[in-house]
């Protein structure tokens, strides 16, 4: 399913965080949203699933603008993996993942057998079967990230949005999450958008990158064509060398020093 932002503007108070951003997430692709701290990446992500009121422009999911979808209907096609989640009471992993089924359960009946089977499948897919009965507050960072992904997957979405999913994960878990995101985007009718800080991972895994800088989308396209020394200087304010990794064939960014005039 298609997800598109048209001239999205959004601000906290008077200061605009997004100043007219347009992008389109196409079926089958993994889209990486990158940019320096404070560029508006997380805000844009929140706009894309209706968590943030817009001050201008619109977000279109499928054929309809987001406000014309009900909240339950959105949750059935669009899943979000947030940076963090703090359940007030330490529920078991199985139950926490099961709450991803909410929008597909009967409104007042709670989960059915079908929902339970779907949860089992998600637990298996993310390798969480052994942890299913553990309380969510006893997990490591990497484990809890997998639980958050499993919860979003339980929604059976066509579109998945990831908000900095590899932050604070070790190398192995970073690869795990990126592999999952790419595999998800390759499913029939699916697509995924991922907010990343690590440009190397972004260049290696994403089909297209969007570079957000001070509320504007300043560059967009395939990683090889998008990431340039000039862009890194202008947007991130660093002198960097771009090298191609012989092992992966992907661009690798080596930051050298702060640029004199950012």
């Amino acid at each position, binding site marked *: 399913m298609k997800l598109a932002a048209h001239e999205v503007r959004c601000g906290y108070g008077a200061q605009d965080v997004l100043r007219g951003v347009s992008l389109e997430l196409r079926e089958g692709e993994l889209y990486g949203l990158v940019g320096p701290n404070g560029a508006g990446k997380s805000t844009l992500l929140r706009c894309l699933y209706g*968590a943030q009121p817009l001050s201008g422009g619109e977000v279109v999911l499928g054929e309809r603008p987001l406000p014309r979808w009900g*909240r339950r209907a959105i949750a*059935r096609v669009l899943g979000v993996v947030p940076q963090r989640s703090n359940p*007030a009471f*330490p*529920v078991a992993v199985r139950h926490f993942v099961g*709450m991803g089924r*909410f929008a597909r359960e009967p409104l*007042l009946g*709670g989960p059915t057998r079908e929902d339970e089977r779907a949860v089992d499948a998600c637990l298996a897919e993310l390798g969480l079967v052994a942890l299913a009965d553990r309380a969510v507050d006893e997990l490591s960072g990497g484990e809890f990230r997998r639980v958050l992904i499993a919860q979003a997957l339980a929604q059976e979405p066509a579109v998945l949005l990831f908000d900095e999913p590899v932050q604070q994960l070790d190398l192995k878990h970073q690869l795990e999450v990126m592999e999952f995101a790419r595999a998800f985007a390759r499913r029939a009718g699916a697509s995924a958008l991922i907010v990343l800080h690590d440009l190397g991972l972004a260049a290696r895994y994403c089909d297209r990158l969007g570079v957000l800088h001070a509320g504007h989308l300043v560059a967009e396209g395939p990683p090889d064509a998008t990431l340039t020394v000039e862009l890194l200087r202008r947007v991130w304010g660093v002198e960097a060398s771009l090298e191609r990794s012989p092992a992966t064939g992907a661009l690798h960014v080596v930051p050298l020093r702060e640029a004199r005039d950012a």
Partner: protein
Amino acid sequence: MPLRRRAPLLALGLAVVLAALVVSLGVGVIDVPFGEVLAILGGRDDGASLHRTLVLDMRLPRAVGALTVGAALGAAGVLLQALLRDALASPTIIGTAQASGFGRVLGVFVGLGYAGSVGLSFVMALAGTLLVLATSRSRRGFPAQTVLLTGVNVGMLFAALIGLLQYLSRDEGQLSRMVLMLLGGLWQVTWAPLAWIAPLAAVLVAAALLLARHLDLLSLGEEDARRLGQHTQSVGTLVLVLACALTSLAVSIAGVIAFVGLVVPHAARRLVGPVHAALLPASALLGGLLVLATDCVARTAAQPNELPLGVLTSLIGVPCFLAVLHSMARKGAAR
């Protein structure tokens, strides 16, 4: 947890409560053997004994009142804790019960009938709780410290208003009715109001149970709940109204009984876990059981006198609450 897996646990809980009911009907200044209690309840006795009057007209309404009050407060505590995402929330902590007590007394002061005072008590419970929520709401929900401090203050406000009404009352009879009403006890319970309050409370608890899954989502936090498809605003409002209605029914029967709404959800969470489809019925049953048992002690411990129920629940509740706080503080330190 689906119903088929909850059913045995629920049945066990109900059985325990029923057994406690029979025991409570038998004990008192005059003990009635349990066999006879069962015979009286089943209509198999001679039909005119002193014991029959004692069991059916004096002890049964009181026991039903105790179960109603306990179940209502236990459920209200669970609802408020899910809404505020805070295990320390309860009707007395955040001022709902005091506001409700003020409404009840105000009803007496202005000369409303029983049902009218109950209605006013509900309105005040809602007003007081909304005041707390509106004051403490931040962009990210309800910060626990702010809610608790605001709640304590609003509770004091309504306690002061109750004092003002009592001061303004010119009529000795009215004054003594106000004081007794809020002392926290079940000795004045009669069938007439109970006949509609108990079923109404049962309906409200059942309605809350229908929302069990929504309570699970709500306690994830507003942001997460919305992301997963919940209309948090309307569900939150509904949960608030249910909690206030249950609190005002309990206060109308027995005055302000502290700590049941706080301690019972905690105990129930230890027994059956945090999933609301199990937690809510467990809290209602456990709350009923606790108030019934405490009232039995209140009636019998200092015969022929009676201890105030509200005082007893506080004597039990305060140490439990302190234990909870202590364990939370230690957990916090470990993190």
